[in-house]
């Protein structure tokens, strides 16, 4: 026998509520006999519920209050130890923060720490600045100002830069003089240290008190730019040279599929060396630079003195020629005049050559092409370069992320489906005992 409305949802709910009410009241009192029977059944089933033994209940409650301790030596105990160790390790930072004194009490200590850090950082930065000066030109980039100041310290010693020469003279008075017998000073540097490549000591001159020292300057630098920018860079080098009154002695420019490079040998007036180098360095990233200087003052003075002597001898010979009484004597004087004239011409050429070498600095510029946009990297890049680099970085990261997702998403999908299937299978197998 079934209730006429047993399939009706409302009826089902009403009858179940009646059963619940009977369970709460402990009695079946519904008017409908069918429902009352259900109430009776519910009460009977409830009464059938077994109660646990008091001994078992007490023992289990004791274990529960102790946190269900594992038996010593069991795998569970070992796992508990590992788990508690990990939990303690994870909780340590939080507990340490909690144990710290209040921020107000830590203010003095924090201030002291900040002060020490600031002082230390300041000292370190001072050392670093010195180190930077020492390391100029050894690697990625060279500050054009450093390069120009190095050039100025010696380049201004020439005759064509009287202002700088006066400065040099002022400095030379405070510096020990080099002995007269000292040979021509030659200083050079391969670009690994700006301090070492300073020009010949201004005050250590050949002639104490004299400021018109003659120094041969030789500077080489490597400018780095992307391959596609090398031709334009070559034009810029020429323009800078012309703008500062110099000239291009020789140049080569190569450009092919493997890359681009070039070489320029320039002559820059010594007086314009500083701004010229600054402009050149501003054209691209200075990959390296080197500078050497050779003091040729003594040779210059010697040659000039020899020229003056030769001229004096020539004047003397000319006077003696006027006074010569015999043909043999006149002939002898003429031969000597020819010799002296040759000497004068040679010495004048030597002086002219020396002047050319000291009035114009030799500047060798290597143009090194780089693949892509690497020339913009490093600390010497501009803001645009930094933006480009950041963009490249973001694109690269996005690419990596997409690749990772392309692998991870299918794996996660497969894993999820596997987990779902396993769960369903496990549930079905577990409930198979109820079937």
């Amino acid at each position, binding site marked *: *026998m*079934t*209730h006429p409305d*047993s399939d009706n*949802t409302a009826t*089902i*709910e009403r*009858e*179940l509520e009646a*059963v*619940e009410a009977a*369970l*709460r*009241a*402990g009695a079946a009192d519904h008017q409908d006999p069918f429902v009352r*029977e*259900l109430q*009776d*059944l*519910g*009460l*009977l*089933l*409830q*009464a*059938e*519920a*077994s*109660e*646990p*033994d008091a001994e*078992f*209940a007490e023992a*289990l*409650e004791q*274990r*529960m*209050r102790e*946190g*269900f301790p594992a038996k010593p030596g069991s795998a569970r105990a070992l796992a508990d130890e590992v788990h508690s160790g990990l939990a303690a390790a994870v909780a340590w930072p939080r507990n340490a923060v909690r144990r710290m004194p209040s921020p107000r009490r830590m203010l003095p200590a924090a201030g002291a720490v900040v002060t020490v850090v600031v002082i230390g950082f300041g000292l370190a930065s001072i050392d670093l600045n010195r180190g930077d000066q020492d390391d100029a030109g050894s690697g990625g980039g060279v500050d054009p100002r450093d390069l120009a100041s190095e050039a100025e310290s010696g380049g201004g010693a020439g005759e064509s830069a009287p202002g700088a020469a006066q400065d040099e003279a002022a400095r030379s008075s405070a510096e020990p003089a080099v002995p007269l017998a000292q040979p021509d000073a030659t200083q050079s540097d391969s670009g690994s240290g700006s301090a070492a490549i300073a020009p010949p000591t201004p005050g250590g001159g050949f002639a104490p008190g004299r400021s018109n020292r003659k120094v041969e300057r030789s500077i080489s630098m490597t400018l780095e730019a992307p391959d596609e920018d090398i031709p334009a860079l070559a034009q810029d080098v020429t323009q800078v040279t012309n703008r500062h009154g110099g000239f291009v002695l020789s140049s080569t420019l190569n450009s092919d599929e493997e890359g681009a490079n070039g070489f320029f040998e320039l002559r820059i007036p010594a007086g314009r060396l500083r701004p010229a180098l600054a402009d050149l360095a501003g054209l691209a990233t200075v990959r390296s630079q080197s500078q050497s200087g050779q003091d040729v003052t003594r040779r210059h003075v010697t040659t000039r003195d020899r020229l003056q002597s030769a001229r004096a001898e020539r004047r003397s010979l000319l006077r003696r020629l006027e006074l010569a009484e015999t043909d043999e004597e006149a002939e002898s004087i003429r031969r000597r005049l020819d010799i002296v004239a040759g000497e004068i011409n040679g010495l004048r050429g030597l002086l002219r050559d020396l002047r050319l070498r000291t009035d114009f600095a030799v500047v060798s510029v290597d143009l090194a092409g780089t693949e892509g946009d690497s020339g913009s990297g490093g600390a010497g890049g501009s803001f645009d370069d930094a933006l480009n680099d950041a963009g490249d970085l973001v694109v690269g990261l996005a690419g990596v992320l997409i690749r990772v997702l392309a692998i991870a998403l299918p794996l996660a999908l497969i894993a999820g489906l596997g987990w779902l299937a396993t769960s369903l299978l496990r*549930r079905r*197998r*577990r*409930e*198979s*005992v*109820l*079937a």
Partner: protein
Amino acid sequence: MNWTHVRSRDVNEAVAERMPVRAGTDVDTFAALYQRTFPRVFAYVMSLLRDRSAAEDVTAQAFERAYRKRSSYRARRGSPEAWLFGIARNAALDELRRRGRRAGLEGEPADHDAPTAEDHAELALRREVVREALAKLDGHERDLLSLKFSGGLSNAEIGRVLGVSETNAGTRLHRALTKLRKACDDAS
């Protein structure tokens, strides 16, 4: 771990009276959950296993498992009672599978609570009829009735344990109860 105190809406008072339910507390603890549910869990497991010793082992195992997994409980997935009974049910079913106790479910339940001399003869008879009728139900139906009348769960909680909706759980429960009633009629 803090448990949100969720009192089953329609837990029968008879079962509730046997349980030390801590009413009026906002923060429930695992100990409180234990106190609130231990007799019901045992009764439910006992109804499935029909073996007191095995029921005690499985009950202890269920509470220990729940204690160790207590951090995995999520309130949005149901009440703590439903979560705990799910664990107990899985443990009991695993035990049944492990021990090949299918016959135990379908067979005559052990008479641990046999009527005493003080029981009325009519009540004893009715209990016997109900036990015979229960034996005619399938495992799912007995499981459902056990969750309701031994475990004292609401229909919503039963739905959580079985993975069905509250309405579906109620319908199934009504059907099982009706079937049991018919089996009792047939047996008497």
